[in-house]
């Protein structure tokens, strides 16, 4: 349980980071929070020749709440984003989901961008990016010139633990669009123990019109599809207030779209069942959080 040898690089600036990554190409891995990479090294499931530690690049340690989006830099820790009141107000799903990512101690070190780069289909933030319609910014340098490309979740996530990151590229930041007040969000999941990777998780986004009727709804999935899947539920839910919405139809639609695999912890059928149950739960919670939700009558 000891990591294999590697050559260590600790650039101090973004420019230097991109230069080192360009030079090393596919022999290098970025070291962000290390909360996924170091376990892989300790178990000798990965043996990169070079590690480029970006923890000292302070310009990547940003949480920027802008007029259109919340942009988080490559070394913004899960914990920092979770605690940021501005980010939570602009995009409540961030805090709702981050509370479910591992344990607080892991979140003190792990980064949201690292989580996206890792592309684990069980990672909450992959579904958050997908369902919100956010983007990742990938940066690389060639002959002293920096190139950047912005990709949506659909373009970025390719397969379990596989993304469109090319050798030499850094996931520089991720942008999560602001959620309008009329839209409520929620993240519901079932894990065997608090802090474990979820057996299934559903992120929901429900928009209500001024009359309190559902205008649009969609959910994003984790742990039941190879990459986060967004299922649009507008066709089955729109046009009625949340209390009269056909949640059974929403549940059926999501269950028909997911393709879970069985493992030690849960059968495929159980995961599919959870996808349905959690869709209902998340949609109901999300709708109740819209500014246009009918005033609460007792328990939500």
């Amino acid at each position: 349980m000891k990591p294999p040898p590697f050559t260590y690089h600790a650039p101090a600036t973004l420019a230097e980071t991109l230069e080192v990554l360009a030079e090393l190409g596919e022999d290098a891995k970025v070291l962000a929070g290390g909360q996924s990479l170091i376990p892989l090294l300790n178990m000798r499931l990965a043996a990169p020749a070079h590690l480029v530690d970006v923890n000292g690049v302070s310009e990547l340690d940003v949480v920027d709440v802008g007029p259109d989006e919340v942009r988080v830099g490559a070394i913004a820790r899960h914990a920092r984003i979770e605690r940021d009141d501005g980010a939570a107000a602009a995009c409540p799903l961030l805090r709702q989901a981050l509370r479910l990512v591992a344990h607080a101690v892991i979140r003190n070190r792990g980064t949201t961008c690292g989580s996206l780069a890792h592309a684990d289909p069980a990672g909450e933030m992959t579904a958050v990016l997908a369902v919100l319609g956010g983007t990742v910014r990938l940066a690389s340098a060639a002959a002293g010139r920096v190139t950047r490309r912005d990709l949506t979740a659909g373009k970025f996530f390719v397969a379990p633990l596989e993304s469109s990151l090319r050798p030499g590229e850094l996931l520089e930041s991720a942008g999560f669009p602001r959620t309008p007040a009329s839209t409520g969000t929620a993240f519901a999941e079932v894990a065997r123990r608090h802090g474990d990777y979820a057996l299934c998780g559903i992120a929901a986004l429900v928009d209500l019109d001024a009359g309190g009727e559902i205008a649009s709804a969609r959910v994003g999935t984790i742990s039941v599809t190879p990459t986060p899947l967004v299922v649009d539920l507008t066709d089955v839910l729109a046009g009625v207030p949340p209390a009269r919405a056909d949640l059974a139809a929403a549940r059926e639609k999501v269950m028909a779209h997911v393709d879970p695999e069985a493992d030690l912890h849960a059968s495929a059928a159980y995961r599919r069942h959870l996808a349905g149950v959690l869709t209902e739960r998340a949609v109901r919670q999300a709708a109740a959080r819209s500014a246009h939700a009918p005033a609460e009558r007792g328990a939500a």
Partner: protein
Amino acid sequence: MSAEHLHDLTLTVNGVPHPVSVPARRLLSDALRHDIGLTGTHVGCEHGVCGCCTVLLDGQPVRSCLMFAVSARGHEITTVEGLAGPGGELNAVQRAFQECHGLQCGFCTPGFLMTVTALLAENPSPTEDEVVEGISGNLCRCTGYQNIVASVHRAAALMTDGAGEPRP
């Protein structure tokens, strides 16, 4: 086999600078235990699950098995050896674990003490749920957790009585 490149660096642990010469792959947990000789930090799983190796990095709890010593350069590290006062008097959390029998074999205890010290520094009067969630990343194979939960509440009470601040 060619000799592995060694990095010379200074780790500040419990306020004391320790010069070490380590390969890049040296885990912080191993640097603390083997290079510096502070064996209070325990190592259970080496993949972030058990919490035994938890130390404070600039006051925040982190897994020392999921960090390289070279990355700890320039940071303040606090281990379980740094919790007691200069005369060896236990901090509030340590006293509470002793009073409430919050340990049996003691293997998990350093990780719990670090996690709880940080938890109470941030939230001096946690609810039952906050206590349970706060220690959910630490495994104990002996106690069944009941006395650990009681210890956390006791530590919170000791602190609000002014009987002792959690250090640091």
